[in-house]
């Protein structure tokens, strides 16, 4: 049996341990905020946090979640996450929105690890997240914006 914490709740699972976390969360728990884009770790649409680190849940088997703390977009509420979501709104980042939960997950993880990322840090952290609508440069600007907000709150 595999058990772990999902968005603060304890869940248990007894099926195929090779099933990717993404499909468990989407199909069995009906939490569809994490998206399917490629299934092979190439696009970032399925990004979740596993013990605080961003992972591609389409390529993370259930076995790897055992005992872990998993957060999806639905459970995201850290200070960095709020700053990211506000910046996203302020700069009208979103187009179709499909990639955006993955973008928000990756960006939040970035700010939680590095409060003041420069453009290169951002490119590095975000290049695994494809946006076919190409909201890239607004994402970049919004991450800077959120990082400034966080810096102000601290001081």
């Amino acid at each position: 049996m595999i058990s772990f914490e999902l968005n603060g709740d304890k869940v248990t699972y007894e099926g195929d341990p090779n099933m990717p976390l993404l499909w468990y969360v989407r199909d069995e728990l009906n939490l569809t905020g994490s998206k399917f884009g490629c299934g092979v770790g190439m696009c970032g649409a399925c990004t979740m946090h596993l013990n605080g680190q961003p992972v591609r849940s389409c390529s993370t088997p259930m076995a790897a979640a055992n005992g872990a703390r998993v957060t999806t977009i639905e459970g995201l509420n850290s200070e960095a996450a709020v700053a990211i979501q506000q910046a996203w709104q302020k700069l009208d980042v979103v187009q179709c929105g499909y990639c955006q939960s993955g973008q928000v997950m990756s960006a939040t993880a970035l700010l939680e690890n590095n409060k003041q990322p420069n453009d290169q840090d951002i490119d590095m952290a975000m290049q695994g997240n494809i946006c076919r609508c190409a909201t890239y440069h607004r994402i970049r600007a919004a991450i800077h914006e959120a990082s400034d907000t966080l810096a102000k709150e601290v001081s």
Partner: protein
Amino acid sequence: MFIEQLQHHDSVMHNISRRGFLKTLGIAGSGLVLGVTLPSFSPAYAAESGNGEMNLFVSIDESGEVNIICHRSEMGQGIRTSLPQVLADELQADWERVNVVQGLANASYGSQNTDGSRSVRHFYQTMREMGASARTMLEQAAAEKWGVPVEEVKAIDHKVVHQSGKSLGFGELAAAASKLTPPDVASLVFKNKQDFKYIGKGLTIVDMHDIQTGKTQFGQDVHMEGMLYASIVRAPVVGANVLSFDKDAALKTPGVADVVAMPERSFPVGFNSLPGVAVLASNTWSAQQAAKKLSIEWTQHENQSHDSGAFLATLQERVKSKGKVQRSVGDAYAELDKAENTVQASYSVPYLAHATMEPPAATAVFKDGQMEIWACTQTPQSTQNTVAQVLGLEPSQVKVNVTLLGGGFGRKSKPDFSVEAAILAKHSGKPVKVVWSRENDIQHGYYHAISAQHYQAGLNDKGQVSSWIQRSAFPSIGWTFSGNTNEPQSWELSLGFGDVPFQLPHLSCESHEATAHARIGWIRSVCNIQHAFALGSFVDEVAVAADKSTPQMWLELIGEDANIDPGQQGFEFSNYGETLERFPLDTKRLKHCLNEVIAKSGADKPTAANEAWGVSVHRSFVSYVAVAAKVKVDNNKVTVLEMHSAIDAGTVVNPDRVKSQQEGSMIFGLSIALLGEISFKEGKVQQSNYHDYQVLRMNQCPEIYTHIIDSDAVPGGVGEPGTPPVAAAVANAIYHASGKRIRDLPVKNHMQV
């Protein structure tokens, strides 16, 4: 579909507050509901009509809530925001109290197809009329209540105010207004441009909050009790059918409920499902795992000899000789012989796939003779009609719900995936969701056609162009629907080829045959992709030969300010379904964009030694876009540093959404230029996922600047016109930075990107 012709009628407003069918839309009540009849459409392929019935609605209920039915699909272009904001402005409504309701597939809306960049273009005026009508009726209702002349009252901020200062909210007036006859559209008074509160403002898109918190429902997200998940293995070669497969191996996989052979198919492929085998399971993963165990054998089909490399070589050979003349002036061939200097070059663009971030998905339920579908579709009506036709149902037995779309780009205007879901739902009696994987999406698309172009120019001793010959060859979208079309159609050549905006004394535009070996479809900006790439590159080459700057060459070729009518030179020009009177091909606007982008970008200023600017300009979807791109080339590695565009799209409703569409469509163009390539070997697509069908990522994304040209002209298309000029601008910049001329896209086949 972008090929449809809009017949210009005047719209008529109806007070439909008491019509029973509004209940089905969830907006019935005791308030005011206005509907409007839009002109009918005559699409070429999808039988959709909206004859004389209601197709757009606004309602105001007694609590003052305003509901606007948006009948177009949202796919990132912000249409669920832009259309309502026009209406809300004329209505004097408070945007905070406006709800946007997604319209169901319903022939009475008129065409709901969302492509061809025309939602705002076609509905801007109608939205204003509806808003102004409702406002006038509310004012009239207030005047009657107070017993004062209507001239003494005025709607403002969601209420009607009398000059004495008293006021009544829209909600309080809704019931009374619903009993009035709508005013004659000709008598309506519209707001002045300077009084606009929402039009021309960048309102935040209505779905923003839900998107950020993962609450929105896309096609892939639909969930129903007892639903089965389907994974389908489709014929790898178009034309092949299933010969045999191993049902048992798949059935033994845990979670699998059924294994179903999809119906056999022949030509034309149309919007039909593809042949193959479907696995139905209790979750996506089980279905996908079991699908790998099917060991399907396929029948033979001659398309299995299709090799895109060899095919392109044939097209490239063909365009070197004279083809079928589509437009001509003077005698381009005689003039070419007399020329002082001649330039010629051939260009090619490979097959391309849409690769929308959300792969296609549809869910269907068949119950009591009724089919209900939830899909990320750009075309709810053609989904309804195609499903009805394939399953032998009446369109009235098929209900289509439009989810949000995780990108469309033309892929989701083909309802093949909904047909699959409907077939499987009918077969199984349970709700079925068909989930396309990324591999399915890349390998079973409706591809942008592979193409070859050839250009020749003659120059006189002053370096002026005296003769111009251009040729194009590519498999036609028409083949997808006819099964036998084997040459470019005039409406395809109307996308940046036969409408070449030059006023030259000797010109010949010609096409060549090409057979289709794959499903050919339309992708963001369609044939403008190859035509703008070839034209924009060749103008640059001619400029180099004539020792002039590229903008200078463009201005000479375009010539005087004029409205060009390619029809007068024998070309059957479809002009995006619009008349030339309403949407002329205006050289002045084209030149203005070019001048503007140079002024704003500084593309005429010197750069570092290994850097350079490239420019191009193009009219498509009745809008005008010029692009300037700056690149750096280091040891055969290309970095795009900056891209600027100037867009003249007539009146702009939501500048921020125009800007974001411009950013998106230019990066889409840059993906095509640098990376995009689908190739076929033995009739099969060689690529399968984002590792080998690459699209641009953040680290490759240049700085982007959009300059919107202020205009009062009728709104033009937005969403596609930003794509076409990009590839030429970038290839030209690469040439000027490195001396290397890229004539065959993508750039990655020649240089590091």
